[in-house]
């Protein structure tokens, strides 16, 4: 049963644009989906290696700017009169570059955090995000600073000569985002259910024991940071090409907080957690808007968050699994348990 749940959910979500025609709600689905991707990437670090990246929005924002700039082109003068001119590239290349550049930044942050864990990791990531935000704000020649990058083209897929498909409509963007959510889910679930994921959990649970069984924990922390940052960059790229305008506010700390809330409420260290938490907290403002004033909306948001954390400290998904008993025996995948029987 549990094996098919992701497929059932995917199928159900695929049907949404067929019966939901309200553009406002479709828009909510798309933006929520983008943040779900970002939250999933945060969960890889927080839920599996146990490291809280409170500057996670940096990777999101770097992805957004990279993708926008690669597809818009730019012309900047570096120190010493050295001029860099970049002609616009196809948008899908911008998407790829966003993943690569964000992943590279994840690598750098991971390496900086060599031997740095817990509170220090939080500080390193926050500082990184602040530095990147200041660069985006002040390097006006490249980023337009507070004036924002505008007229960002929509995402387009295709090859020269074969024609392009442009993601203009809300429906098409819905499917694009759903596709990225599904792909990220597959990547993360394969990683965490492997020897690599076990090494990450070992780092989270007991670092000295992990190294004593021969796990190079730094290597897996860096790997997690790279994959996590790359996926966050992909989310940022989707964001830029959907909204078609970005300014340094994409680096708002509030966005990181939103991701953290999605992960914690849904259940960190579970695959479905960020999706469930993301849907709930993505749609609270939408639902609340229909009957409450803006102040009340935020109060509701806060109350709901506090309620979840108090009632279900592990998050919603682990609670549901316990309730229905669908969660396998703690930590033993069903297949593994069966194999123990075989091996006897």
């Amino acid at each position, binding site marked *: 049963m549990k094996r098919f749940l992701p497929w059932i959910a995917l199928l159900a979500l695929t049907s949404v644009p067929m019966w939901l025609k309200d553009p406002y709600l479709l828009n909510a689905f798309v933006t929520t989906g983008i943040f779900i991707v970002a939250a999933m990437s945060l969960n890889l670090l927080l839920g599996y290696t146990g490291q809280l990246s409170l500057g996670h929005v940096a990777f999101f924002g770097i992805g957004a700017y990279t993708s926008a700039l690669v597809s818009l082109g730019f012309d900047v003068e570096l120190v010493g009169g050295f001029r860099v001119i970049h002609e616009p590239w196809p948008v899908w290349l911008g998407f790829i570059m966003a993943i690569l550049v964000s992943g590279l930044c994840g690598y750098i942050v991971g390496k900086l955090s060599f031997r740095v864990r817990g509170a220090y990791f939080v500080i390193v990531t926050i500082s990184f995000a602040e530095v990147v935000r200041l660069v985006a704000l002040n390097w006006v020649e490249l980023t337009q600073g507070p004036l924002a990058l505008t007229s960002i083209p929509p995402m387009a897929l295709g090859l020269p000569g074969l024609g392009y498909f442009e993601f203009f409509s809300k429906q098409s963007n819905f499917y694009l985002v759903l596709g990225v959510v599904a792909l990220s889910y597959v990547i993360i679930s394969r*990683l965490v259910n*492997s020897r690599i994921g*076990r090494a990450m*959990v070992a780092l989270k649970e007991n670092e000295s*024991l992990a190294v*004593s069984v*021969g*796990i190079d924990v730094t290597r897996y922390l860096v790997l997690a940071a790279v994959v996590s940052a790359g996926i966050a960059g992909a989310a940022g790229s989707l964001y830029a090409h959907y909204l078609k305008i970005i300014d340094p506010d994409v680096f708002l700390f509030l966005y990181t907080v939103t991701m953290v809330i999605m992960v914690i409420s849904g259940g960190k260290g579970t695959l479905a957690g960020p999706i469930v938490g993301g849907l709930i907290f993505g749609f609270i403002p939408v639902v609340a808007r229909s009957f409450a004033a803006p102040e009340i909306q935020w109060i509701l948001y806060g109350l709901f968050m506090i309620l979840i954390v108090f009632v279900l400290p592990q998050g919603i998904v682990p609670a549901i699994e316990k309730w229905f008993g669908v969660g396998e025996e*703690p930590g033993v995948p069903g297949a593994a348990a069966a194999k123990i029987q075989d091996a*006897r």
Partner: protein
Amino acid sequence: MDARSTQAQPALSIEHIAVHFGGLVAISDMSFVVNEGEVVSLIGPNGAGKTTAFNVITGFLRPTQGEVRYRGSSLNNLKPHEVTSLGLARTFQRTSVFQSVSVFENVMIGLHRRGRSRLWDTLLALPRERESERELRARAAEILALVGIERRSRELAGSLAYGDQRLLGVALALAADPSMLLLDEPVSGMNATETARFMHLLDCLRGLGVTILLVEHDMPMVMGVSDRIVVLNYGRIIAEGPPAAIQGNPEVIRAYLGQGAKKRARD
């Protein structure tokens, strides 16, 4: 035993090791060897420096001076996971398991170095990934059976009885496929039956050719399993030799054995 010592091949050699913590001398000028296939015990009163010695050997601490070698290569500048890769695995004095995952997953984590799948195998779910996982699961089941906690494999490690957690700690060390095992007070807190079972496990491991360095306060056990004993007091080696000689050594009796009985009563 005599036959063994005539063809003795040193596996681990500790050469003039000293460890200072600020002004405190935890170990001063310690030298001894452990030969291939031997069971050597390191004993001494609380605070003598036994755990510190383990930490130096396994790369958790840098010695202030001296050198540690295993099968000819120096361990001095290696990180703990690199030391493990050379075939040295340890257990910890304080119970140490991955609390919130199952017993079986614990051993799967411990088998990390045996996994053969690369990042691409995992991401693309290639056959090698599945094959490697299948091998690891079979091996994990074997190790759990060897230490005798296979019936607990689906339970959370943190919910095991104390004695079983200690055994799981040994299973984790064994999962790293060591040629030498360092055990820090493995039977402390175990009852008599569990201790007897553990001694049987030690016999099995010795039969498999694993070299063992043991730290333990349980004297009947130490005397029963050791080929040789090294006695440490205030960071210095005060005696070294076969169990019979150590038992009769007046300095050892004064420094430790008289007091060891007291400690056992307290435990």
